[in-house]
């Protein structure tokens, strides 16, 4: 019985990480593309744009980090 639970936990961890990485990947790529456009349009603001981009990417990354923590818990705590 416990082996089935373990297998389900591992499978769930893989699914959780895979699905949880979809959204942040899309969002961060979109942010970086928009930042590229902004820098191409006004190169003198490159520092400010890069800073804002990094902060925004880190915020949108947090859901991916949550899924990482959840899948680590599934692997090591269940």
């Amino acid at each position, binding site marked *: 019985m416990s082996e089935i639970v373990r297998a389900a936990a591992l499978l769930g961890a893989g699914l959780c990480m895979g699905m949880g990485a979809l959204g942040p990947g899309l969002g961060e790529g979109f942010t970086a593309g928009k930042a590229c456009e902004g820098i191409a349009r006004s190169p003198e603001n490159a520092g400010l744009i890069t800073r804002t981009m990094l902060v925004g990417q*880190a915020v949108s990354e*947090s859901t991916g*980090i949550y899924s990482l923590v959840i899948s680590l818990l599934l692997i090591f705590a269940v």
Partner: protein
Amino acid sequence: MKKKSQKALLIILAIIIIEGILSIGLNHELQVGFDEGKFVIRNIESKKSIQDQINHEFQQYHMIKLFGKFIINWSVLRVILFVDLFLILFALLVKRKMHLIPGKLQIVAEMIYSFFFSLVIETVGEKKKYFTPYIFTIFVFIWLCNIIGLIPIPGNLEPTRNLNVPLGLGIMALMFVHYSAMKEKGIKLYLKEYAEPIAFMLPINVVGELAKGISLSFRLFGNILGGAIIVLVISNLTRFILIPVGLNLFFGLFIGTVQAFVFTMLVLSYTAVAIK
């Protein structure tokens, strides 16, 4: 003058060596030498499986009981104290030789400080420039905590890898945000903001405020721990030859710097929203 700075460098080196001697026996992460006729560069307790190694990364066992009641995780606290000692030494060295024409150390310190000074002024305005010391300190502390894992001393793990450290930093940041909001607005207006659209929204607002602190600390923790586990797994696959160096550079230097900056920037912008 030059002899003094050499003396300071010697002191720092001595501290590093003492820390290395203190940490012998905590865990045998680094091992250089011959093992069964083969030259071993890095060997993390090779008898254990990778699962046990990752479990070990999680736990960081070395508990000390104080007065029979308090339990202190010495393997984390040791590295934090080392970071603190380094910061205090740096500050003393800079402060001792303050000149109008800056020396080398003073230039470095002034560069970082003026960067954060301009950041604070841009975000919260000229009047609130007294936020700068806290913001500066929290950045330097988290940054050093993240990159200290690059120094190859046994047991020299990043303190931010343990959840307790980012959680403490997050709680501190949350208290800072709310205290400055209370001080700025007055306690009546501050409490009134929680029931802002309608009184029904009170629990949702409270949970939203708490989630800020939790997401701050979990972001730092997850990034550092995830990087550490990736480095460990890939080092195991490649038998600790050459590739882990590049990975350590990416996860330790780049991710560590970005996450420290993001932590400070988010605290600053939360404060800017709260005192508006």
